[in-house]
């Protein structure tokens, strides 16, 4: 049963890998240089606007690559609070960047 489970597991992994590869092959479009620069600048500006505590959560996750549990321990939050904060912060920053780029156009 264990071997069968392993086989199925690796099959699921492989199928998912192939599906992700296909998605990237279909939609990987490099941004033009100028576009990429203004996009990154907007992202930097929007990240600067995030309150200090939010920046701490984002930095812990993306720069320090901590797990939710480690972020929670560092910042005194529950895992669920970390998950929600990250979800909300990412959404806010995405929205800020998109608005900023639209305004620039």
């Amino acid at each position, binding site marked *: 049963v264990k071997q069968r489970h392993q086989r*199925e*597991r*690796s099959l*699921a*992994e*492989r*199928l*998912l*890998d192939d*599906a*992700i590869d*296909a*998605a*990237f*092959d*279909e*939609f*990987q479009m*490099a*941004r*033009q*240089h100028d576009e*990429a620069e203004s*996009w*990154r600048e907007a*992202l*930097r500006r929007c*990240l600067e606007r995030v309150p200090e505590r939010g920046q701490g959560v*984002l*930095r812990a996750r*993306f*720069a*320090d*690559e*901590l*797990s*939710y549990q*480690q972020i929670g321990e560092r910042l005194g939050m529950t895992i669920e609070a970390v998950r929600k904060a990250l*979800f909300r912060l*990412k959404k806010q*920053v*995405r929205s800020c960047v998109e608005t900023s780029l639209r305004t620039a156009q």
Partner: protein
Amino acid sequence: MNDKNDWEELIDRHLRGELKESEKERLTELLDTNAAARQEFVEHVRWDTEFAEALRESSHSPSDADILAAERAETDAKSASKPTFLRLMLGAAAVVIVALSAGLIYQLAYSEGGIADTNNLTTQPRVSDVSIARITGLSGSLIWTGDRGQIVRDVKVGTELAGGTIEGMAPDSWFELQFNDGSTVMISGTSMLTFADLGQKEMRLREGIFSANVVPQPNGKPMLIHTPSTLLEVLGTQFDVEANQASTMLNVTEGKVRVRRLSDGREVDVPAKHRVIAEGGGDLTLQPAPESVNHWKSQLHLQPGCYGKWLPATQQRAAAQKAIPLVPRENPSVTLYLLGISVSRSDGPPVVVRPDSQFVVRGRLGKPAKVHFGIAVSDANGEFAGKFRGDLDHQQPISKPDEDGQFEVVYRIGDFTLDPCVRDRKEDLAVKPNDLVLNGVWAFTHTGSPSGLEVSEVELISPEREVHEGK
């Protein structure tokens, strides 16, 4: 897809490596059947990757010298506990990262024309008031973060620096720095080094290959090199280091280096022509520097390459390293598909390239394509000796995959020439890779669309071995 939050949560959990089997199947099915889901998935990963890139850059803003001092004690515990999902994610979304990195692609893309335009640099690092070192050599894709937070992607030879962090972004990246007292340090490949000199030289090698030629240091102020697992004290010597989060390999050519393992505080003095490998548990015993060998074969069934996407072995096919897209910042209309494999010195003796040897590259291609191939070499002291291409001198034929998609290409060492991107400092480098130590190999295609390049094996074969095997 009915619940957008649920879908985003699913992607998020995939990136954290937390999906159950049934959720993996659900995600696969969504990606297979829904173009909008595929686009959204790629976009989501792209955003997360950009977040990571931007936040990493901004996290360099405080003085790196301060960070070195403050984080000395806590770095290892933190590094050891880091999850690897972000690295996997970054690998999957490398198209975004590489679009941000400079140099390599441009050089690769134009290398056939023999152009290495080092003058076309628009942004230069600010010259510091208190310079501690000068860049004496570089090539490939590098990012320098100054200790005042400035981020420079176009660094150049001759720039004076006050300290900061240099990151090699690609397998062929290389960087050499000379301190004011004449000591030189070098990183190569995908590496990250923070350096400072506040009366005592102090460095932090987060990962990668590092070598140094250190003149005698002031009494009581040895050069300090932090790696994730060790602290090295250097008084004046020649040595090279290969570090990752799990282990550090130190090879001393001249002089003596003291190694302290951070996990248990054990110390050992490593004399000339000896090496030590510091890992979590095991012995910290000296080993004589091993004799070199002339044969090498990649071990992709055991470990991933250093660039690209690693495909572990399955029942149907051998393990392979898959090329991922790389877009030059200077020329965003060009997309190369690149992979790299490093030649680890921790796992075996140095591999010396002989003039009559040859490389055999085996793998898969989705369509006929020229497979370009390059190598990085150093001299016996670990000092960078050059990057060479096996596909330039000899007009590289198009490789045609067989009915199973397999291909094989042979590159003879006699045909290797200096990579165009380092030709501007050819006086300091070897003319040929002959009798030099192999550090890494890379392969790429430039076909305008995905070539499906996967390399399952690279082998360096010496003439004796060919005779021995009756070839």
